[in-house]
């Protein structure tokens, strides 16, 4: 199982957290990139990642609406698969959206996204007294415990 990237979108449709795990050329090696809003040293990669986040949001938003229209209001969009990758989606009651891109052979990751929400987001971001209510530009999500926990959790799965 390979996990390519992970995104969190808030209820204002903004990408508040994104992280990519790209398998590097060296066997067993992994390179990670994290972007919070527009803060990044490498201009070019940050624009690319920002564009990707916008495209992903547009896609899951349209598909979620399509699924709701056809399947009824209680229906929920879970995942889609192309020939190259699979996208998993989980939306909380507060319209926080978790998206994960994996390889095509991966089974449903909905429970994994739910675990990330319960064990990492709620524990380290929501319960953090210094974290703002709204995460404009990724404020408060860029938190050592959350980032470390997420990285450990994802690496444990791979």
């Amino acid at each position, binding site marked *: 199982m390979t996990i390519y990237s992970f995104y969190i979108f808030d209820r204002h449709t903004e990408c508040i957290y994104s992280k*990519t795990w790209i398998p590097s050329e060296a066997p067993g090696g992994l390179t990670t990139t994290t972007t919070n809003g527009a803060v990044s040293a490498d201009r070019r990669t940050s624009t690319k990642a920002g564009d990707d986040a916008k495209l992903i949001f547009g896609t899951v938003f349209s598909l979620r609406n*399509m*699924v709701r229209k*056809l399947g009824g209001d209680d229906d929920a*969009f879970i995942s889609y*698969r*192309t020939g190259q*990758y699979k996208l998993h989606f989980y939306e909380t009651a507060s319209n926080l959206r978790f998206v994960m*891109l994996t390889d095509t052979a991966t089974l449903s990751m909905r429970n994994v996204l739910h675990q990330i929400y319960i064990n990492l987001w709620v524990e380290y971001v929501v319960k953090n007294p210094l974290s703002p209510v709204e995460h404009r530009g990724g404020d408060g999500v860029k938190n050592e415990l959350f980032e470390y926990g997420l990285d450990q959790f994802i690496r444990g799965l791979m």
Partner: protein
Amino acid sequence: MTVFALIIINKAGGLVYNRSFSDGGLNKLSTNDYLVLAGTFHGVHAITTRLNPVKTPPTAPAPVPGMLTRPEPPSGLEVLESENFRLQCFNTMTGTKFLLFTDTTQANVDVTMRRVYEMYSDYVMKNPFYQLEMPIRCDMFDRKLSSYIREINNR
């Protein structure tokens, strides 16, 4: 095992065929909503192709010297899963999209899709009165499709 509906979208994103086979399962939408849905899906399909995070491997050497090869282009959305239904999309070489809505437990949708495509080729494309890229109004196609899907739904 149920096949809920079939939608055919032409290469420009226009809805050319829309048919539901079982009552329940999916909500009934107005014709306008189906047209919007077809257009939206066409756009989303193009975006899902571009989102490919996998780096394309270096091109394999040509089997015959001098022959040009190009890597397989990334495919767009193929299967979508929701809590209530499953959507299988088949994109033909010419860009026509077949969307088959089934229940979540339906197996062998590939086979069904292939058969539907064969029927489309036989009864729509070989119909001399059918105008390309226009809505499909072919009695023969309707009849054959109904009987084939009824057979699957009653299995």
